[in-house]
């Protein structure tokens, strides 16, 4: 794939086999490619790197027939976190993205219904940010 830094990892030490870091734009292409060869979206994790003023979104993929585990990660600036949605390729990502939006405030462009999932409907706070005060 274009513009992606792939570093193989040892499954016994890290739990996944391939670690792909790419720009936010390439996330949908990666999802389509992996979806095409039978991968399934495991989960999406948001990480708030407040020191580097960046937000990271990590996509985990597993394959129902092979032990191969692929991780795709992308970083976006912290003050305007915007990542295109993959819920077109994996409808399961719909809930994952809503939850990541709940906790970190990362907007997912093109998401059909980006309302709070786990927090109350009128919640405007993002609790898992490092600078969150209750």
């Amino acid at each position, binding site marked *: 794939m274009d513009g992606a830094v792939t570093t193989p990892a040892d499954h016994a030490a*890290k*739990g996944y086999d391939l670690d792909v870091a790419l720009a936010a734009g390439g996330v949908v292409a990666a999802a389509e490619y992996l979806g095409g060869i039978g991968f399934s979206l495991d*989960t999406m994790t948001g*990480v708030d790197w407040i020191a580097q003023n960046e937000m990271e979104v990590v996509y*985990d993929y*597993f394959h*129902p027939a092979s032990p191969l585990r692929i991780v795709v990660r992308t970083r976006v600036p912290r003050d305007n976190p915007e990542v295109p949605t993959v819920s077109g390729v994996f*409808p399961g990502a719909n809930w994952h993205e809503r939850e990541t939006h709940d906790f970190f405030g990362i907007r997912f462009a093109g998401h059909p219904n980006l309302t709070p999932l*786990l927090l109350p409907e009128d919640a405007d706070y993002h609790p898992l940010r490092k600078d969150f005060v209750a």
Partner: protein
Amino acid sequence: MSASFDIGAPSKSGETFVLNLGPQHPAAHGVLRVKMTMDGEYVMRSEPVIGYIHRMHEKMGENRPLAQFLPNTGRIDYLSALHYNHAFVGAVERAARIEVPPRAEFIRVITSELNRISSHLVWWGAFLLDLGGFTPLLYAFDDREKILDLLEGVTGSRLTYCYFRFGGVRDDLDEGFAGRTRAFIAQMRPRLKMYRQLVTDNVILRKRLEDIGPISPELCRKYGATGPVIRGSGVPYDVRKVEPYSVYSQLDFDVPVYPEGDCMGRYRVRMDEIAQSLRIIEQALDKLPDGPTLGKVPRVLKLPVGDVCYAVEAARGRLMVRIVSDGKEAAYRLKLRTPSFSNMSLFEEASRGMMLADALALMGSLDLVIPDIDR
């Protein structure tokens, strides 16, 4: 979910109304709310609303040392708590490279499989309660109490276990444990045969479950559903076989798979899994080596910088714990990939156009534990 999935206009004779299968509902197995747009008896569109029991497990993972998060793992999915202990402990051991003595690994497998049986028994009782049969719940809880006595003798609690430690398990098994477990297995097998005759072969159950709520392998892959849901649709995906962890590679057991993909397929997968777990426990008891049950663990545990994942086959499916660490005592970010979250996310698309009673049978066959969804 975008409304493009509507199945045609409502029938001419009646308007649609919104039914609240709300947080407090016997078939919701907890506080799950599903807003169902109904046309008479048929579900036009169902929209699950979750978050009513969100308990901030991931936030708690970040503000306390790793060892203090162990009690939380028993309270995320309290029916198969030991699997969550196993996932969290496994992730930390994988990151900090802690050696686990073989005896502890076998004890982990034995207690986890006992926990899987007790979780399937609760599912079986509650599922048939949804379908209208009350008596199986009493049989299931009768058997489950026997398992709880076994596990309580070893772990000390009945439900929210906190038995695994980094590098092994808290206590060794007492000498009577193996005998009591074998007696339980000997007593459980004829019970399973009785359940099959009384319930599985019951024609009413067949009519209620066969080709109701079909879930295709493609739908499972799109939503990331795993566990008995994907094995009920013909895909033999079991983390114990595909990504072997602990000592499951030394034990031989087969993974029950049924191709139909309907509620009956998922029902049969779980009933066969109880039999398989009994086999696993027997083999693990035979191969139980002697030796210590707790490896060497540094006094103050700090994980190396970077992230680590560890996947486990919980009773409801693939459970993965991802710990991102920045070298301090507490985890920088702790992500719990819980099986019920993905299993439930396909309910919206799978329950279109079904009758309300069948939609509830489908929800029961997904075996949901709501704090497992909300975390």
